[in-house]
């Protein structure tokens, strides 16, 4: 699903995610300049976090959907490409991105941790645009739901067509954009620190709740909850534990 520019078919999802990356990069560069930091360091960190995010999101996707993967076709290049093209899990990307952030410190001697607070609003911004892409193509769809706010797809490759569904992707997109505004207010207007904890405490509970309204079947589950819900619970507990701890002087998050 996409639109045509010349002979190229631009998929809606790719369009929205690239739009999100461009908008978030612009915001990041503006903030880095406003805080008098090195733009090259920002580019380096953003690229490393992006690489770690893509690898982490793909690895978690392969782990949670391993039952659906046909191991006998792993030598088939077309099948490998289809596996690599679609299917990522956000929390895997978050973990991969954070790991690469620390690798930035170790390998390139860049004080990456100090950039977390500056660049933090870029994360939910890209995520929000990604969810708009999900809504456009119909993946990550919601449960059947009849109301004035329902979404009904006509030609989706992913969602059941002609059935009113809960707009779970749009809800998450809007919440991500609200988180961006809250983080900007918290970090820039209130001049407070530990924004990463605030981000986790704003995003994870909403993700936990929205998972109950998801209807796409190919998501890993452990017991009553999906993998993302377990990760949400873990993150909430970790963030709450760090919040009650008194921050050391000089720590940013």
């Amino acid at each position, binding site marked *: 699903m996409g639109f045509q520019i010349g002979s190229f078919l631009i998929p809606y999802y790719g369009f929205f*995610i690239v739009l999100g990356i461009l908008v978030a990069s612009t915001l990041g560069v503006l903030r880095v300049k406003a805080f008098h930091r090195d733009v090259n360091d920002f*580019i380096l960190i953003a*690229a490393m976090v992006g690489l770690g995010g893509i690898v982490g999101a793909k690895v978690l996707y392969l782990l949670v959907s391993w039952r659906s993967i046909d191991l006998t076709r792993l030598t088939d290049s077309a*099948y490998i490409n*289809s596996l690599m*093209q*679609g*299917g990522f899990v*956000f929390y895997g990307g978050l973990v991969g991105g954070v790991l690469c952030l620390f690798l930035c410190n170790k390998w390139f001697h860049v004080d990456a941790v100090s950039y977390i607070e500056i660049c933090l609003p870029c994360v939910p911004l890209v995520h929000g645009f990604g969810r708009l*892409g999900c809504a456009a193509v119909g993946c990550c769809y919601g449960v059947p739901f009849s109301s004035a706010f329902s979404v009904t797809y006509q030609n989706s490759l992913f969602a059941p067509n002609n059935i009113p569904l809960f707009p779970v992707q749009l809800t998450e997109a809007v919440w991500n954009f609200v988180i961006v505004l809250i983080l900007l207010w918290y970090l820039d207007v209130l001049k407070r620190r530990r924004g990463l904890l605030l981000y986790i405490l704003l995003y994870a509970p909403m993700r936990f709740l929205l998972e109950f309204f998801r209807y796409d079947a190919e998501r890993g589950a452990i017991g009553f909850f999906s993998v993302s819900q377990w990760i949400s619970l873990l993150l909430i507990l970790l963030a709450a534990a760090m919040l009650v701890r008194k921050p050391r002087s000089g720590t940013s998050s």
Partner: protein
Amino acid sequence: MGVAALVLGIVSIVLGAFSAGALGWIGGIVGIVGIILGALGRKSAEVGKTGLATAGLVCSIIGTVLSIILYIACIGCAGAGIALS
């Protein structure tokens, strides 16, 4: 660093624009590595001699954007790849 970034940037543009869906994900990864090398090249270059690294950085960004916009189907959506296969 600058030369490596430029080479990777050009490779990612070629992969992104002309592989017709087959190698777009490789183009994205190659492009991101090119961006990393480009940024490192700009950091380590003498003042006024960052042209090659900047060219590599720009090419890598274009290649990454082309690869991602054309070939990533859905981040955050487990099952999208399986559904397409």
